Every structure is written in C-alpha cells, then in structure tokens.
C-alpha cells in the first residue's frame, strides 16, 4: 500500500445548534484548512440536507477531491448519506470518512475543550483517510425461507402470515404439539372468546399449509451463518410413532396394556393421568400420538405384549427403534417466538403452593375450567368438592424485589377472567387480592367493571400469609386491606395464585445460540424499544411474542405480524449489500498456525492443507475483526481497518 496523493475536502456540520452551540465551527474549519492534504474546508448548517450534500458533490467535481471527511453526527446516522453523496459524484464511497463531533463531543463536553477535542478527532480522521482505499460492496443473495422457533400463538401467526404470502417456513416446536400457552386456556380476556375456537383453526391451518414444514418435538441445536443465509440444525426427537403413518385414530391408546391412564399428564400439569402412549391433548397438531419411553413397558423391559402395535395393525405407525434425526436447513431469516414460562409459585413459601393441596396456580385453574381439561371443565377441588369461596392473589412473582421486579402485564386481566369464570361455573364467592388493578387495554377497564358488577370482591392489599383454617381443608388468607386500613383474615376453599411471566429457563442458551442480546431480566432484546421493536441486534433475526417481554394475546399477534412483515421485507430484497469491510489472509506469510480457523463466528475461515495457509471466504466474512486481532503473526488484515489506517488515526489523536 502506498500513500496516494490525497486531495481532501473537510465538511463541518453545525447540526443546527447541536454542534455549533458548543463547538466553535469557524475555528474548526480554519484549523482543518491547515492540515496536510486538505484542499477545501467548509462548515454548513445541516450537512445532511440536500444543499449540504451538494457542497461535497460540487467540490469533488470542481476541486478534484479524492478524499472526503465529514465532521458531524454518529456514522450510524449519516455515514450512508455522505458515502452515497460521494458515490453520486463519482468518488468511491469508502474514500469518505465520518468524524463524530456530536455524540462524542458537543453533547458531552462544554467550553473550549469541545473545540479542542473536535480538532483532535478531525486531525485523526484526516490522517487516516489518506490511507483509505476504494472498495466494492458485495451482493449476497437471500434465501427465500424463514425459520420460526416456537409454535405458540406468536409462532403460529408469524408462520401463517409468511406462508400465506408465499414464503417457505420451517416451524420448529419443542413440545409434541403446537399451541403454546394459549392452547391451555378455556376463555380469553377481555372478550371471553373460547381459546380453542380461535386457536384450533390456526393450528390446523399450519399443518395443512403447503408452505409450512412443521417439526414438533424438535429443537434447534446450532445456528451458523448470517442474515440472508443461516444454516440451522434441528434435532427431531423420536416419538416412536412414524408421523406420516399415524392417522390419529387413538386405537393404540385404547389398546395399551395399561387399561387405565397411570402417569402424570404434562399438558394438564399433572392434574390428570395419561398412558405411556398418548396424544398430548385432543386438539393437538399434529394429530399424532407419541410414546413416553420412561413409562412404556416395552422400553423398560422389552417384554410388553405390545397391544398398541397390534391395534395399529396395517398402519404400522409404531416404531420402537425410531432414532432422533438431525435436519439441516438453510433460511434467510429467523423469527424467535419461544414465549415465556410462569413463575414457580413454590418459591414464595408463605403462599403454601405445594404444601396445601387447595392452593393452585392460575395455569392449573385454566386447565380445570377448560372443557377438555382433566375435569371436563368442572371446577372442583382435589377432593372433588366444589369450592364455595375462592381467593385469587394477584402479582405472584411480579413487582416484587424478592422475585421478579417487573409487572407481568396479563395477570390482573386473567385474574379478572378467572374470577368471572369461577363465579359463572361454581357460583362461589370470589375475592381478588390486588396491589394495583392494571387494566390498560382496549375493553379492559370495561371488563373490570363488568366483573365487579357481577359481585366479585376486590381487596386492595398484599396477602401476607396463607394458612389452614379450622378443618375442611379451608385456608385463611391474611391481608392488610389498604383501603379499609385494617388487617383482614378471609377463609376460602381454594386459593389461586396469579403467577407472573418470566423468561424461559433456557433463554440464555437460546439467546447465545442465536447470537442475540437479552435484557438484564432475560427477555430477548429488541434493537430499539420504539422504532425497531421486533428486530434484534443481529440482522435477519426477529422477535415475536412473550420471549421479548410479557404481553397478552392481541399484542403477541400484532408483534408476530410485524416480525413476519420485517422478515418478508428482508426476503423480498432477494439480495443484500454487504459492507466490504472483510478480512483477508496474507497467504505468502501465513504460517498455517490455525489459530484463526476455529474463531470465526461465521465460519468464514477454512484451512487449505495443500498450501498450509488459512483462507477467508469473503462472502461469509462479516468483518467482526476477531481473526485479525487473533492472528499471532499479523497475517490477517481487514479492509477499512488496515494497520496504516488505524495507526494513523491513533497517531492523529495523540499528536
């Protein structure tokens, strides 16, 4: 690399008063004019405006500039603007360099020091831009398919939206059926729509949509690549039933040597029993049974009569030798819709969950009042009695510095829903214990009023203790009623804990695998809370539903639609332009030490055994610089971050 005869134009932006109010732009311009290679130096009110850009273009034409330095805001904002201006004037865009004298200077300093710092930054840029080289952007084709991870309502809605728009979708769900939490509910607030009635059609639509490949009982195990071209490996766990052959007749379940269901049913949270061979729940999609090897006699002893196989007969769907398989897919975008888990109520010991049988979580009650739940929708206690009094405790594991600090957003509303349903089904007296009643949503406050009118009691106060009342399994709730200003003790037959929403236990591993960030609480982090709410900091990976934070179904669906639109927009570009800031190996001096090979997060580096050197596939390189820093013999360099450029910049700052 030789030093070219640089002719530099320097442009200093006032940014209204954002910069000029603090930095003496005239002095800065005069200083710039004295720097080596600087041919013109100007200042202007808004460099990003059309006339501002025109200044640059005119100077390139009239003054024969071959380098441009713009001292303005963050390159995040306007690097593209100024590079394009240069390009339009026939100058390679990478011969333009930005200096951030706003965020890095005028916004954070006062007095003459700000002008002095601007001079330092500008000098550094002028010294570095001399070494900048013309570079070409690369075009990368975008794969026309999307991976959706998680088949709750978020994943279902996103998958259907994309598939209906003609894109190929892979929907990967960990459980044997899609549906997520919503499939567990009977009714949904605030309209009391039957959850199954609105969800089941969408679930079956997923199954029948030719553009969707649905893999349930499956998990993503590795992700490589980058926006437009992700390579993903999916582990499909064996269900010991061949999906394509099973017709969901359930004759095997009927025929199982276990005449009665004997094992805790996961979908009903252990409130009912199932057999070793089972369908997760009646509306499950796909309608395919599975065998639990932990409880199936054939797996345990190899000595079962296998009446299930007999019953299955010619369909031949049962396969005890099924093995897990690994599928590899290539997609252009990924939507994460892995949802949430509910707070583990046993963590708050004084509520007695797990100790007193009549303390339930809200999710359990959702199952109990569900028409296809363990009791056929009849709300009864474990001993079969109908509760006459029910206490619902809000904010369990929410808004509490000992557990989770955040508000889970849906618990007030679903507690109102449950209060209504309990009253409707049992006629019981219902008490809701709340801290603040949060009903900010369309039709929410109206729903609250309706439930209040139905005669549900609302007690404002945090329940301090739950303990057995006299006999009958009754429990006493001790609470300070903050509206009455007195401690009350209310005996109830049933306690319902409105458990909060929290990030899934494996959220950290999932986030690492997909290389995205999360908030301090563990929710997946959006790129911008207002302007990029479904994007992540990793291009091509989007978020939908509760994995990003607690929300109700309407918000989840809206967000899923937005994520689908973002993914669609990306795929529709059909190719993306990649910055040319890639790394390259100096083959003549690489020692073949292999240090770099395993380090590239994008697997762009391979080892050429015949030449005994490393090789970087510049189509895969994202310019992260990891290998450049790691190469112990300095044999990897990077465009736009060449040693000369960096050291000249550093020298410029220090001069």
């Amino acid at each position, binding site marked *: 690399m030789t030093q070219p005869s640089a002719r530099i134009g320097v442009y200093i932006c006032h940014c209204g008063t954002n910069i000029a109010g603090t930095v003496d732009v005239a002095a800065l311009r005069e200083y710039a004019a004295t720097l080596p290679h600087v041919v013109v130096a100007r200042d202007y009110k808004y460099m990003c405006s059309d006339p501002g850009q025109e200044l640059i273009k005119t100077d390139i034409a009239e003054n024969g500039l071959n380098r441009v330095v713009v001292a303005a805001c963050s390159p995040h904002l306007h690097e593209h603007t100024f590079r394009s201006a240069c390009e339009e004037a026939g100058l390679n865009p990478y011969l333009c360099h930005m200096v951030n004298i706003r965020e890095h200077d005028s916004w954070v300093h006062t007095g003459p020091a700000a002008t002095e710092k601007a001079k330092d930054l500008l000098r550094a840029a002028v010294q570095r831009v001399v070494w900048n080289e013309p570079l070409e952007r690369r075009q990368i084709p975008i794969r026309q398919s999307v991976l959706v991870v998680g088949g709750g309502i978020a994943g279902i809605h996103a998958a259907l939206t994309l598939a209906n728009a003609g894109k190929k979708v892979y929907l990967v769900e960990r459980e044997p059926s899609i549906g997520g939490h919503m499939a567990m509910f009977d009714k949904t607030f605030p309209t009391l729509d039957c959850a199954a009635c609105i969800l089941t059609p969408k679930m079956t639509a997923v199954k029948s949509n030719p553009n969707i490949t649905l893999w349930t009982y499956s998990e993503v195990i590795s992700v490589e690549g980058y926006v437009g071209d992700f390579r993903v490996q999916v582990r499909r766990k064996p269900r010991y039933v061949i999906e394509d052959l099973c017709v969901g007749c359930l004759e095997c379940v009927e025929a199982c040597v276990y005449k009665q269901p004997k094992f805790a049913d996961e979908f009903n949270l252990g409130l009912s029993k199932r057999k070793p061979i089972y369908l997760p729940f009646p509306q499950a999609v796909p309608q395919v049974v599975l065998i639990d090897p932990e409880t199936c006699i054939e797996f345990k002893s190899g000595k079962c009569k296998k009446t299930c196989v007999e019953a299955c007969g010619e369909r031949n769907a049962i396969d005890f030798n099924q093995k897990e398989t690994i599928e590899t897919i290539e997609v252009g975008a990924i939507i994460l819709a892995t949802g949430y888990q509910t707070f583990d109520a046993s963590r708050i010991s004084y509520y007695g969950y797990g100790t007193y049988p009549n303390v339930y979580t809200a999710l359990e009650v959702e199952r109990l009042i569900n028409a296809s739940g363990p009791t056929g929708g009849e709300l009864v206690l474990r001993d079969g009695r109908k509760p006459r009094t029910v206490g619902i405790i809000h904010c369990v594991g929410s808004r509490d510095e000992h557990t989770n600090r955040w508000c889970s957003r849906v618990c007030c509303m679903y507690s109102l829903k449950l209060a209504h349903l309990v009253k409707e089904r049992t006629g019981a007296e219902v008490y809701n214990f709340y801290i603040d009643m949060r009903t900010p949503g369309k039709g929410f406050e109206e729903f609250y009023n309706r439930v209040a009118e139905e005669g549900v009691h609302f007690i404002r106060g945090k329940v301090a203790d739950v303990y057995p009342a006299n006999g009958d399994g009754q429990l006493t709730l001790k609470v300070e009623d903050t509206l009455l200003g007195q401690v009350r003790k209310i005996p109830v037959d049933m306690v319902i804990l409105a458990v909060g929403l929290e990030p899934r236990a494996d959220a950290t591993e999932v986030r*690492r695998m997909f290389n995205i960030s999360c908030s301090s609480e563990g929710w997946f982090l959006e790129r911008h809370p207002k302007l990029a709410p479904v994007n992540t900091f990793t291009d091509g990976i989007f978020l939908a539903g509760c994995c990003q934070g607690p929300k109700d179904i309407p918000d989840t669906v809206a967000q899923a639609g937005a994520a689908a639109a973002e993914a669609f927009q990306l795929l529709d570009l059909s190719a993306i332009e990649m910055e040319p800031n890639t790394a390259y190996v*100096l083959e003549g*001096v*690489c*020692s*073949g*030490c*292999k*240090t770099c*090979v*395993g*380090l590239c997060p994008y697997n762009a580096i391979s*080892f050429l055994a015949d030449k*005994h050197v490393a090789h970087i596939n510049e189509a895969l390189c994202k310019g992260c610089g*990891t290998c450049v*820093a*790691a*190469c*112990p*013999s*300095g*044999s990897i360099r990077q465009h736009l971050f060449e*040693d000369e450029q960096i050291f000249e910049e550093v020298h410029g700052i220090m001069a």
Partner: protein
Amino acid sequence: MKPKVAFYWCASCGGCEEAVVDLAEKVLDVVAAVDIVFWPVALDFKRKDVEAMPDGSIAAAFINGAIRTSEQEEMAHLLRRKAQVVIAFGACAQTGGIPGLANLYDRESVLAAVYRESPSTANAEGVLPQPHYPVNGEALELPVFHERVRALNQVIPVDYSIPGCPPTPKLLADAVAALLTGRLPERGAVLAPDKALCEECPRRDSKPEKLAIQQFKRPHETLIETDKCLLAQGLLCLGPATRAGCEARCIQGNMPCTGCFGATSRVRDFGAKALSAIASLTGSNDEAEIVQILENIPDPVGSFYRYSLPVAPLPAKRAPAAE
C-alpha cells in the same frame, strides 16, 4: 583487503558468543574471509584500539546483549561511529531479552535484591556498587547502572537484527555471507524468515484446526508426546506468534517455543499478540471458566514478554522522566 568485523557483548549471558563458536568448522571460513578487529571474549583488543580506528572503517559490528550500564551505552555509540553496519545480535540486543525482565522492578529494588537481600549474599555493611570510589588516593570507577534495560535500537540506530536466544549458527553464517556478497536486505530488516514458527515446525500437521485448550500444563507436569503439536497438548507453545528461522530447535528437543525469535515484522507488540492468540484458544465460553484456564499460565509477563519487555508499548514500569 578483507572486511573488518567486530563482535561485542553488553548485558547478555554469553550464549550469543557461544553461537559464534558454534559455527564450528565454519568459523574458520568466517575467520578466513573477514578480519576480526575486536572481540573481547576471544581476542585481546582494547577499547582504545577501537577508538583509534577511523570512523566507518569497520564493515560490520555484531553487538549482543541489552544496554543496562553507561559502559555498554558508550561502547554502543563508539561501535556505531566506527562501523558501517550495526547488527543487533540475539534477543537481548534486539528486544531486551531476559535481562529486560528486570524492568519489572526499579533500579533500587534490583540492587537491593542482588547486593543485600538474596540469601547467598554476604554483605554485612550493605555496600552497593558506586560509580566512584576512592582507594589510597586513587579514584576507582565503575560504570553507572541505569534505571532501565534498553534494547540496542533504543540507544543507537541499528541496521539489522538477528533474532534468537541465542541465534542459530546458520543465521549468523547467512548474515556473514550476505555481508560479504553485499546482498543485504532493506535496512531495518530482521535477518530471518518473516513467517511464524508453525510453518517450519515438524509437528505442524498434528495441530488440530480447532483448538480448545481446557488446561495449560507446564513441561514438568506432563509426559510430553514427541510427535504431537505441543499447544494441542496444553503446553504454552508460542510458535504461532514467533518468527521462524530457529529450525524449531526447542520443539525438536520436546520443549515448547518460548518466543525468543520475537514477532514477525507485521506485529508491534509480541506479548499482546501472543496473549490474544493463546487466550482465544481456550475451550470455554464462560468467563469464570476462561479465567480459571488462563490462571494455569504462571507468570504471564514472564511467559509472554520473556524476551521483549523493554520494547513493549506498555512499559512494565514507567521510565523516569530523565535518565
């Protein structure tokens, strides 16, 4: 007339002189081809003999050792004047070498450790070396012991360097041959290959493409396999960061490379580069675990800056304003 050559030693162990002798029968060729005008370790010339020579009359001066004392500094300047070409010979002259590790301490602690505190010292009065000492009306002089150790090129301009602790006889023979034929590279060059050692390592094919080091071991803690990449065995081999040209002698002796040949021309800070490469090969993504793995490396400064502390961009101890 045969070209005149000088050899001199500064702060060094004598190993570099040994390397000259190690030329074995070839030393005779060298002796036949050149006129050795100064070589304190072997020939009886004095400083005044050198002072008497016309400036620039020596074709090449090979100076080994780092610069710690006023005498070494004076000799460096003298030889610079007299010689057309000055060659920093060996790691100490090139980058400070082992003596350079003393820069971890200031002058006072070094003197105190050597003359007062070390268990083998018998110095009841706690006498320290003095530059001037009157005896029987005469003044005895000792060289001044500087605050810091410096590499040769931090004291005088150096034309070429031959790396190594010590350099191999082959590199010396090649350098002499280049001198005699006038086929010297651009000034400032290091007279050794500009690739890292893995290139010429006999074990290179056994090095895995993806290393994930779980535990670093010191050579005495493990039975070292003789045909497998040492780094892959968890030994801190600095071959990937170190200039080739040593013919992988340590590796052939079943010992990991300690980096005496220094960095390639493209690297400004040997220690930082070696450290960042080695650290990136640890087999964990968990911060606490990485720290634990790296804690197995004893004495990181001594491991990564063993030969180059005086030229490291971040000084171990800041030099006082004026020396």
